[in-house]
């Protein structure tokens, strides 16, 4: 019984551990070496899914801290990724509060809203308050592929949730 409880706790912290690891390690979801325009913001998919399905798995404070770490590693001004992730959390929580039952299609559509809001804030703050320049084509590709890959990761995370954590949909 105790063993099950430890395992269950471990499965519950899996998503947040993955988020921390993605932010701090050199592992990137940027597959430019394979296909030049293929870039993906995996972190926001991860955050959005778990905020929608199991918000207790994705604690706000941890997401904030992971954002700060991501800024340090990537060389962005501190706080900008946290802000972007918190916008994702905000939209996710709002959608969760407003909806009774969600499907992959509805999650996909609301994820688009969350991603657009979050990226507008992220790039407009960087553009106006820092010296960094970004190619708009890259931002477009990044958003497109993140949106495109969302259903695939949705299915994977859903499988993880059903098999290891247990279903408790909104």
């Amino acid at each position, binding site marked *: 019984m105790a063993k099950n409880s430890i395992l269950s706790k471990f499965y519950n912290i899996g998503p947040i551990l993955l988020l921390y690891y993605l932010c*701090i390690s050199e*592992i990137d979801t940027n597959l430019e*070496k394979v296909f030049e325009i293929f*870039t993906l913001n995996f972190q926001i998919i991860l955050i959005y899914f778990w905020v929608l399905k199991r918000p207790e798995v994705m*604690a*706000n404070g941890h997401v904030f801290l992971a954002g700060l770490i991501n800024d340090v590693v990537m060389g962005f001004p501190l706080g*900008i990724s*946290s802000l972007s992730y918190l916008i994702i959390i905000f939209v996710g929580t709002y959608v969760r509060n407003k909806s009774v039952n969600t499907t992959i299609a509805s999650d996909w559509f609301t994820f688009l809203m969350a991603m657009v809001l979050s990226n507008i804030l992220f790039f407009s703050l960087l553009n106006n308050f820092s*010296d960094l320049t970004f*190619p708009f084509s890259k931002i477009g590709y990044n958003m497109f592929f993140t949106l495109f890959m969302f259903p695939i990761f949705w299915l994977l995370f859903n499988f993880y949730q059903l098999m290891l954590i247990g279903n408790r949909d909104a």
Partner: protein
Amino acid sequence: MSVSRDDFSIAFRSALLQRGGAQKFSVLSLIFLALIIFFLDIYGASFTKPIRGFINDVVYRVTFLASAPTKFFPKASQDISTFLNVREENERLKALVEKYKSLELNVEFLTDENKNLQKILETEYFNKNLSNIMLAKVLVDKNSPFLKSIIINKGTSAGILKGMPVTKDNYLVGRVVETNYLSSRVLLLNDLNSRIPVTLDKGAQAILSGSGLSNPVLEYLPEDYELIEDTNVFASGKDGIFASGTPIGKTNYKGSVDLFVDPNQLSFVTVNLNIQNKGNL
């Protein structure tokens, strides 16, 4: 109508202010905190710089440790394939040694001739200033879609300053844009924010601009200049940062530049401690 507006405001407020359970902080309070940190970092209050430097040093080292397992497997497979190909490589290297032996005499002659000509012209041998260089290990090479930079394991404690040029095997790689006590960030030549004055084989001047992709492009070439494939590109040194004549790459058929050093394959680099930009970077 009013019920729908109430629903909206309740859901909106709840999303911003909800706490309890695993959520120890509300989204709104964290958004405010993130904004405060962001503006403190941007407008650089005097106390934020050392704090940021300390955080950078700690996080870069943790990143280096955390990335160790992911580096192990590619390295192991590379080692195995090298081991399996050792015989072929030996034969190839023997052929290369023969080739270089014949070239060595030529090089010696040309070096002497070059030195004599420089004495006649009373110019400095450009490598004279390159004696004070420092070897640094690449700690973090996270491939961001937007920024192309690496973190090295030497910082202000080793005498590294903002603006110093970074090379590998005497080929230009980039320049230092951020320094911490024990680490520094190097902006690579293919980053969108990188601009370097360069000279082409035939003496034409241009600016090498990072494109955000793997190959930087040449801008501000002379009018009617016809770019030919395989033209060598060197740093012109006009910015006072890079030593003139430092090789960078070769032009390709697309009109961009193939760098001599692959920016994605850096494990050790050298920092030139003599040259430092005095201007605003």
